[in-house]
């Protein structure tokens, strides 16, 4: 089955991973800007990173027939440096019209601090002024519930936001309901240890239905599995779910969400290829 991985950090992965993803049916992916594993020291560090995301990484993906899209921001872990964050936010528009840029992300919270909230709101303001979609990271472990509720407060207090153009990622059992009920898209990240497993993600699809739900691997430099979306597909099949339902979650939903971005110029597989495995 063809699928899209809506959240994966390919700058951290090997070229072999691109080949494996292509063999598994991945035809497109989106790569949000994220933490490098260390705090970058200057706005030029981010400019170089955005250059990599919008040029080299797309070329690397294309070698395996995978369409590469990206999102730009300074992540929440580095938002404690508010001055640097403001420099980066001011620089982001230099890249927004590049091919494959889908919007602002992954912005969000990490430890749910005042500085993180300040930088989050300034990213949202940039997205509103530039008419960009937004991809949002929610915090880890014990901080997720509190942080997700804070993020929802900030978003729902801003009357400019079209909720159908915002994806709130890394939802789990205790955060998916308020995200969906508020009208946002929700992403489930399939990780080996933290976040969601394929089986729990299928549980959530069964409990809430497939509308506005996405699944991703969020593969990065930590413990993660870039082929986690095929694991989700396998679990759905094991439970006897219809191919049409599976394809809605792993293909049609991300295409519908991304299609709201002017940077999403997508080449779908031939119709016959899409239905061949149903």
């Amino acid at each position, binding site marked *: 089955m063809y699928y899209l991985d809506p959240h994966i950090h390919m700058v951290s992965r090997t070229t072999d991973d691109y080949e494996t993803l292509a063999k598994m049916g991945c035809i497109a992916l989106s790569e949000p800007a994220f933490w490098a594993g260390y705090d970058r020291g200057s706005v030029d560090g981010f400019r170089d990173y955005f250059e990599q995301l919008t040029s080299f990484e797309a070329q690397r993906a294309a070698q395996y027939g995978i369409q590469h899209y990206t999102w730009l921001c300074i992540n929440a872990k580095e938002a404690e440096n508010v001055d640097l964050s403001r420099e980066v936010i001011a620089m982001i528009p230099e890249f927004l019209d590049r091919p494959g840029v889908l919007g602002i992300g992954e912005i969000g919270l990490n430890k*749910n601090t*005042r500085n993180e*909230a*300040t930088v989050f*709101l300034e990213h949202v303001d940039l997205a509103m002024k530039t008419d960009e979609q937004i991809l949002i990271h929610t915090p880890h*472990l*014990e*901080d*997720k*519930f*509190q942080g997700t*509720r*804070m993020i929802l*407060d*900030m978003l729902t*207090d801003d009357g400019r936001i079209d909720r159908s153009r915002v994806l709130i990622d890394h939802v*789990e*059992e*205790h955060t998916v309901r308020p995200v969906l009920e508020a009208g946002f898209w929700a992403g489930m990240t399939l990780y080996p240890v933290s976040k969601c497993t394929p089986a*729990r993600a299928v*549980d959530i699809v069964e409990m809430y239905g497939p509308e506005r739900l996405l699944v991703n691997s969020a593969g990065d430099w930590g413990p993660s599995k870039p082929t986690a979306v095929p694991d989700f597909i396998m679990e759905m*099949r*094991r*439970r*006897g*779910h219809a*191919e049409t339902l599976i394809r809605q979650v792993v293909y049609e939903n991300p295409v519908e969400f991304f299609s709201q971005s002017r940077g999403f110029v997508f080449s779908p597989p031939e119709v016959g290829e899409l239905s061949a*495995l*149903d």
Partner: protein
Amino acid sequence: MASNFPPTTPLEREYLPVRAKILEIASALDRIQRSADHTEDDPRWDQLQAGINLLFADQPQRAEHVQLMFSRPYDPQWRQQFDV
């Protein structure tokens, strides 16, 4: 295309994996208690016990309740406190 997996009930699918996970938890708790520096005053030990107790609830929101138990509380007045 119909699924080629044999039809099974959730209990048939989950019995062995859950059995294995129960054993993993049991052995991990044994390992912690055997260690020389183990103290039952550690709040994380209490959290683990409380999480396990939630599994005995007779309703299908155990996962959500376990998640909430391991979560920091949310204060709806946070924006006033942060002045943002």
